[in-house]
């Protein structure tokens, strides 16, 4: 299973990469981690005639805090997040999520931003980005723009990224210790694509939830927040009854994917369970 021939470019600066994208972006692809792109190329399902390898652009390899945000550069690999990269509520959550991404060797190469750019429904980082309303920084020779997840994700593997654009940075809001978090994922084998994921972020004040962000991924064509579940949790103490209700709402609200690994009804069952477990974690640990 060998890919079709392609021209290979390895720019060392973002500007050079953008120039190449301007010329080759239509029939070409950015190569970052390659853990999703190269299998598709080996199956000849993806047939780019040019590959723009951004792995030499050292300036994109960063994770830093600034302006109340965690700013993640395009070359930050999944492996980097297996240890805490920041304080507050994300400190333990990011490593917890990172452990679910494929396997160790995949995490050596795959990148956070690459996962967002690829927009696989089963992507853990896509779910986090959607749930936390991350800011996506996108550049091209035509300039720079920022996108929010609801302006970005169209459907599975499809986004509003233009062919000449490069996703250079993702910005997650820093969350202080008033936030309690939870994440739960279901897959058939260790490291497999998630059939359903639930992410819960609950901000507490005086023992009551004042802000809730509940995200579902893996079960739908793109990750999304479940507003109705967030509403039912807000103002409560997050007890078992309301957590259970939130899980049910999430299960009933989504438009589930169907494939050989899961029917639509089963996906709803999984969403109910994963959202429930994410909420249980947020409340009990």
């Amino acid at each position, binding site marked *: *299973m060998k890919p079709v021939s392609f021209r290979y470019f390895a720019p060392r600066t973002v500007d050079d990469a953008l120039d190449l994208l301007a010329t080759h972006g239509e029939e070409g692809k950015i190569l970052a981690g*390659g853990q999703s792109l190269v299998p598709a190329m080996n199956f000849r399902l993806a047939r780019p005639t040019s590959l723009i390898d951004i792995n030499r652009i050292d300036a994109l390899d960063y994770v830093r805090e600034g302006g109340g945000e965690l700013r993640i550069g395009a070359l930050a690999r999944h492996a980097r997040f297996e240890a805490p990269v920041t304080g507050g509520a994300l400190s333990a959550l990011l490593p917890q999520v990172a452990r679910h991404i494929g396997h*160790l060797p*995949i995490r*050596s*190469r795959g990148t956070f931003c690459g996962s967002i750019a690829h927009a696989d429904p089963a992507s853990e980082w896509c779910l986090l980005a959607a749930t936390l309303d991350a800011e996506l920084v996108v550049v091209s020779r035509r300039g720079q723009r920022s996108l929010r997840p609801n302006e970005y994700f169209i459907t599975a593997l499809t986004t509003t990224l233009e062919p000449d654009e490069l996703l250079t940075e993702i910005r997650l809001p820093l969350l202080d210790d008033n936030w309690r978090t939870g994440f739960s994922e279901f897959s058939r084998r260790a*490291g497999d694509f998630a059939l359903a994921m639930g992410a819960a972020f609950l901000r507490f004040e005086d023992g009551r939830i004042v802000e809730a962000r509940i995200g579902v991924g893996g079960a739908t064509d793109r990750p999304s927040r479940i507003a109705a579940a967030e509403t039912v949790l807000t103002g409560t103490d997050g007890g078992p009854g309301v957590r259970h209700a939130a899980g049910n709402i999430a299960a009933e609200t989504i438009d589930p994917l169907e494939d050989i690994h899961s029917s639509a009804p089963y996906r709803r069952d999984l969403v109910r369970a994963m959202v429930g477990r994410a909420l249980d974690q947020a409340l009990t640990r």
Partner: protein
Amino acid sequence: MSERQNVTFTVNGEKRVIRVEPRRSLADALREDCGLTGTHLGCEHGVCGACTVLLDDQPVRSCLMFAVQAEGTRVRTVEGLADGDKLHPLQQAFWDHHGLQCGFCTPGFLMLAVSILELDPDIAEPELREALSSNLCRCTGYQNILKSVLAAAAEMRK
């Protein structure tokens, strides 16, 4: 067919210069251009891990990288594990504890285990199981692979 280009990199401590098409995978370059056939291809879509090598000390699936990406890097393969006639402790442990049967997945598991133990020489069994679940084996049922790596880890801590 695209123009071939030179790739200069180090394999098992030895400098290599090869000339390959961009689409040549790192796995195929090691096997065919460097003559190191110990790295095996089991799936070419990044699931089985038989092609695992170390690239700048990180475990990677060499079927998911192109050789041109390895320019200037240090690659380690199974052929570089033994020190002359002396087997690496992991190789010795796999031998002592019957950690292989057909041997096809073994180089990938050895390189994976090398990287796991380099990252965390004191790794506990549950975490080791999780890390070793990166690769597939069809013959051993995994029992003796785990046993071998645990034995090697203990030996290497001495």
